[in-house]
Structures are given as structure tokens and as C-alpha cells.
């Protein structure tokens, strides 16, 4: 390859630097904010059924986020991360895939899991770290995962899922499955070494993975201008020799179209794709964050006008697939359901003390077992100090 570049590059005899911004990258837009479609726009493959499911998932996402941010303020859960204003990226991503495709997310992509049908109870049990949580109450709220729904359990260290997605997709391809892996990450996480390692591994080894960057303008307080000076994240896909597309991340139809086409390409060619979805994190980074310390209300207000959910609603109304009465009824029902689910989940017991030592390995090693035996004796001696487990020690 290097020799090809040596012998096949056009030759110049005066130094010719290529400008760092010389690659021009267009942005795909299909749906306007008022619900109309851009002239000559190429529509994704979407019928009323898929559209309705997608819209209902967006609505559920909005309501769950609203309620859980409030629940955190009331001290009912310890932590939460909303995806306000960028829900189309995760929901649209899942809508453009098949259920057998693997989703490896960062943390702000609960919408994809909602689309797959993770139950409200499962969301709640995870956030309340109770004994019914699939993750056994071990991780902070919003670190969901489900083998059944092909959604890899979230890991807090940023970027780690990116090279893993390359390996996962390589395995899918080797096995001859009709399945790809989608890998979500923020424009901040794209600075991590793992991003560069992952894209290059996928490109060189031809793994059918869809790298999906949610470029929402911020990594906690750091604006994207202080994150990179190149042409966004998309330009890097080109650098790794990968098919790349930039889209309007608040345009659900653009998201679905890009993911559908990427999936088709990844399966047919067995190669990776990079999608960069431009959006904005309208809410705080997490419930531990207050954006007023680093950005203006005017900036936020500007992005309020690009609400992806309202945009899809406008389209649904225009299609005649949705009406205001349905809208009111749906949101009312969702709010009631979420409130009721909170009340149930917070009453479910914490995980049993045995969950402390399982899954470190496939089997508990002897030293850990003896530490655990000592712990049980200790808890029985001081039951008042360990109220969640003392009553249940066998």
C-alpha cells in the first residue's frame, strides 16, 4: 500500500500542503422543522407502523427523562443522565437496524434500548439498583444492558466500547450472521485513543460496524471548539479510509436513512461506516452538572427550536398518522405509568449480599469466599450497620 502511494500519487515539484479543512463534508437533511420534506429528499424506508413505533419511543424517552431528572432532585435516585434534544440519534438508530444487530452505546442512548422494548420496570430496577436489576445493582443509574435485546451493558470509561465494537462485528461477520454492530459515542469520547484504535482496527480488518458519533457540541463543560479543530469527527473517517456521512442528528428521517444504508453497506461489503450526527445537548450533562457555569441561555434557546421530537410530530401530523388527541392521551398515559413504576421500584429490596461476590469470576475463588464468610459473621454481629442485608443473611 505504501509503495502504491509512493508510485501512484500525483507528483508535484513545489511543496504543496493540503489544508486541514480541505475535505468538504455535506450534511444530510430530509425533514424540516415544520414537518415538511426537503425537495427531492431521499426518504428512508419507513411506513406508518415503523413511524408510529418510533414516535411513541421518542415520547416515552422524553417523559422518562423528565420524570427521572425530577426523581433525582427529590432524592429518590442518586443520579441520572437525560438526552434532551438529541433523542433522535438513539431512537432513529435502533429504528434503522434489525433486532439482531448489536448496540454498543456510551450512556446517552437509552432511546435505542427503549425502541428494542426494554420494559419500564427494567429501566426502573436498574436506576433504583434493586434486586430485580439485571445488572444486580452494581452500577450507577442509566448503566443498562440486556443480552436478550442485544444491548451491551454500559461501561463508564469513555471510548472503551469503540474498539470492542470492531471486534464484536468481526465475530458477527466471521459467523456469517445477518447482523452488524452499531457503536455510539460522543464527540468528546472521539478524542480518546480508543476511538482511533477502534476505527483503524475496524477499517483494516473490515468489520461490519456502524460507528455513530453523537456530536452534541459539549463534553460536560468543554465545547467542541476546544475538543478538536478539524472538520468535526467525520473527517477522521475519511482518514481511516472509511465510508463516512454527516447528518442532521435532530432529523429522525435522516438518522433512519443513514443507518439503513450503512447497515446495508456493512452487511454487503463487510466494512465499517462512520456517521456523524450533528445535534445539541439541551439539558445538563448529568444531574451532577449545571450548564449555567459554561454556556448561555440564548445558545440553548436557539437549539430549543430544533427539537427533534416536535419535528417528527409535525411530520406525523402532516402524514395524517397522528393527531393532537392521540398526542395528549399518549403523554398523559406515559406520565402516569412512569410515576407508578417509580413507586413500585423504590419499594423493591436491595440485592442480596451474595451478589457482592458473584460474577467477579465464573466461580467464586476460595479467598473471596472466605472474605465473604467473615463478612456474614460480621454483619450478624452489627446488624444495625448493614440494614439492607442484615435481615437476610442465611
Amino acid at each position, binding site marked *: 500500500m505504501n509503495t502504491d502511494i509512493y508510485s501512484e500519487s500525483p507528483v508535484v515539484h513545489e511543496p504543496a500542503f493540503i489544508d486541514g479543512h480541505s475535505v468538504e463534508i455535506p450534511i444530510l437533511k430530509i425533514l424540516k422543522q415544520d414537518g415538511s420534506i426537503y425537495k427531492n429528499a431521499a426518504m428512508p424506508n419507513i411506513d406508518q407502523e415503523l413511524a408510529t413505533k418510533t414516535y411513541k419511543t421518542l415520547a416515552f424517552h422524553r417523559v422518562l427523562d423528565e420524570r427521572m431528572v425530577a426523581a433525582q432532585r427529590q432524592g429518590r435516585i442518586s443520579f441520572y443522565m437525560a438526552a434532551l434534544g438529541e433523542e433522535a440519534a438513539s431512537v432513529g438508530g435502533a429504528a434503522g437496524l434489525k433486532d439482531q444487530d448489536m448496540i454498543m452505546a456510551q450512556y446517552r442512548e437509552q432511546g435505542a434500548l427503549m425502541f428494542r422494548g426494554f420494559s419500564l420496570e427494567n429501566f426502573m430496577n436498574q436506576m433504583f439498583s434493586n434486586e430485580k436489576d439485571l445488572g444486580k445493582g452494581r452500577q*450507577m443509574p442509566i448503566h443498562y444492558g440486556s443480552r436478550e435485546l442485544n444491548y451491551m451493558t454500559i461501561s*463508564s470509561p469513555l471510548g472503551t466500547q469503540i474498539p470492542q465494537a470492531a471486534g464484536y462485528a468481526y465475530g458477527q461477520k466471521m459467523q456469517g450472521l445477518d447482523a452488524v454492530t452499531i457503536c455510539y459515542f460522543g464527540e468528546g469520547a472521539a*478524542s480518546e485513543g480508543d476511538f482511533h484504535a477502534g476505527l483503524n482496527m475496524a477499517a483494516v480488518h473490515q468489520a461490519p460496524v456502524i460507528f455513530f458519533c453523537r456530536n452534541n457540541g459539549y463534553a460536560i463543560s468543554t465545547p467542541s471548539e476546544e*475538543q478538536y479543530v478539524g472538520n468535526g469527527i467525520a473527517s477522521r473517517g475519511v482518514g481511516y479510509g472509511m465510508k463516512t456521512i454527516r447528518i442532521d442528528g435532530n432529523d429522525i428521517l435522516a438518522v433512519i436513512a443513514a443507518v439503513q444504508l450503512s447497515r446495508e453497506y456493512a452487511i454487503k461489503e463487510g466494512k465499517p461506516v462512520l456517521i456523524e450526527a450533528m445535534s445539541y445537548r439541551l439539558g445538563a450533562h448529568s444531574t451532577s452538572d449545571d450548564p449555567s457555569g459554561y454556556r448561555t441561555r440564548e445558545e440553548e434557546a436557539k437549539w430549543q427550536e430544533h427539537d427533534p421530537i416536535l419535528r417528527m410530530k409535525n411530520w406525523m401530523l402532516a402524514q395524517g398518522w397522528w393527531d393532537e388527541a392521540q398526542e395528549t392521551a399518549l403523554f398523559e398515559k406515559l406520565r402516569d405509568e412512569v410515576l407508578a413504576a417509580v413507586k413500585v421500584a423504590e419499594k423493591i429490596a*436491595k440485592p442480596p449480599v451474595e*451478589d457482592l461476590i458473584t460474577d467477579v469470576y465464573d466461580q467464586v475463588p476460595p479467598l473471596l469466599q472466605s472474605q465473604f464468610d467473615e463478612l456474614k459473621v460480621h454483619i450478624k454481629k452489627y446488624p444495625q450497620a448493614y440494614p*439492607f442485608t442484615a435481615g437476610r443473611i442465611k
Partner: protein
Amino acid sequence: MAQMNLLQAINSALDTVMAENDRAVCFGEDVGHFGGVFRATSGLQEKYGKSRCFNTPLVEQGVIGFANGLAAQGSTAIAEIQFADYIFPAFDQIVNESAKFRYRSGNEFNVGKLTIRTPYGGGIAGGLYHSQSPEAYFAHTPGLKVVVPRNPYQAKGLLLASIRDDNPVIFFEPKRLYRASVGEVPAEDYELPLGKAEVVQKGSDITLLAWGAQVEIVEKAAALAAADGISCEIIDLRTILPWDIETVANSVTKTGRFVVSQEAPLTAGFASEIAATIQQECFLHLEAPIARVCGMDTPYPLALEKEYAADHLKIYEAIKNSMTY
């Protein structure tokens, strides 16, 4: 003297250094305008400008690699890693580069002007990735110094000494105490020595050793033991590497009993290194086996954090066991 919490004490130390040394630079993720997610670098960008206090891209290996280069060039590099749990992408830069810069070059080059600050430790409902105490990984690396303060006064004095020390230092900040620990801190410049432990409570029956946020837990256990008439000598190790064997050995020689406690898991933790050395130094004076009270050999959990932790009751039990051995 002013009352400061641990964060304010850190901020005061950084301010002191940046004011006196215009080649001192503070950087890391969200460290600039925002002042860090815990606000330890609050106000520094306003005061010293964007070229001396800034946000970096989100890449720990970049932060520390950059810091190594900057320090090698002779500037004072003070890098922040947002959480100690996220220091591992920079492990290579720290273990293979920071620690070995001087040795491999015959001291043609060194990164003595590097300091890495990072919040560590549990007890804040942070689960696996906002709770770890990774000091032992770094203690296994000759060439590094590893420092952990227990309160605001210690934090300022030890951080100033760490920054000015001519070796790369990892400074672990007990984040559980960032706002919870408040005390008198001089506004002026002062240093506390590296490599020196401190006896924080004199006692005669048993020696208790800890560092960082765990010192407070050990003090609580000692108070329970005191009610039983047991006199505990409490030592704060302060510097993990190189550690003060003499102060600890002298105490154990006197008391004949020794409990060492750390937040991190038991196996291969720094408490194990201490136990081995003290056993060798004080063998003929020991009246009971050395006890290590540590986190369990599991990742740091969330819902069962209380059960997992080396709390004061577990330390108290270890004290009683040692006394009645």
C-alpha cells in the same frame, strides 16, 4: 488562618504555585473556564489566562503524554485526571514514561516537574468507576512518588511539596472529603514533607495505619476501642511511595500490634507491602499477626457499598482480635 474545605485548600496551593512560577501550567478535562468538575481549579483561568490553565481534549493518554513533554521541557506541568478510575488510558505514559524518563536517559532528561492530581476513593455511591483507589498499581513503579492527603491542611502543604519536588508525583485526592472535610489552612505558602508519615494520635497498645480518607475511618474505630480501654496509636502514611518505614516500624516496635487499613481490595494492595516490611522489621516485637482491613477482592460495588467497604466496625473488630490474640 482561614477555614477551608479540601477543594479550597487544593485551589489555594495551585494559586500559590501559579502566582510564584509563571511556567506553572494546570490542565485537564473541564479544568479551564469551568474550573474542573469538582471546581478544584476554579478561578485559575481568569487569573492566569487560557495559556496557563486550560481544557484539554478528552484523552487521558494525551493529557499525561503532553504533561510529560511539557515537564521534560522544563515547565511545571500540573495535570488533572478527572477521576482516578479514568487514569488507565494514561497508564503507559505514567508507568513507562513518567517513571522512567530520568533513569533511561542517565538523567539527560527527566520529568521531575510533573504532578498528576486525581480524585480517588469510594463512599459516594459512585459504583465501579467513580470509587476506585488505584494507588497500588503506581506504587509498583519505581520512579514515581505517590501522595495522599487526609484533610485540607495536609492537602495544601503536601500538594505544594509535590509540585516542587523534582520527581513525577501522583497526588490522589480523597473526593469523599472534598467538601466534607473542613479545617484551618494558612493562606500563606507552606510545605509538608514527602516521604514522611505522621503520628496523628499517640497510643500505647496498638498501631493503626491508613492514608487519605481512610484515616478518618481508622480514627472512628480507635474511638470505639478507646471506650474499651484500648490505646491506639494512629499513623497517617501520607506518602505511599517512597514510604516512611521508620515511623511505622518505631511505632509497632513500641506497641507490638499492628492493623493497616486501605479502601482498595486486599490482594496485592499497598497494605500487603507494608505488612511484609513491618513483619520483617518488627518480628521480635509483634504480639499478634499483622491485620489488613481492606476492601473485598471484588470490583467496587454500588448497592452493597457498605458491606464491601473497610468500615470502622471491621477495623474495630480487627483491633479487638489483635488485642486478644
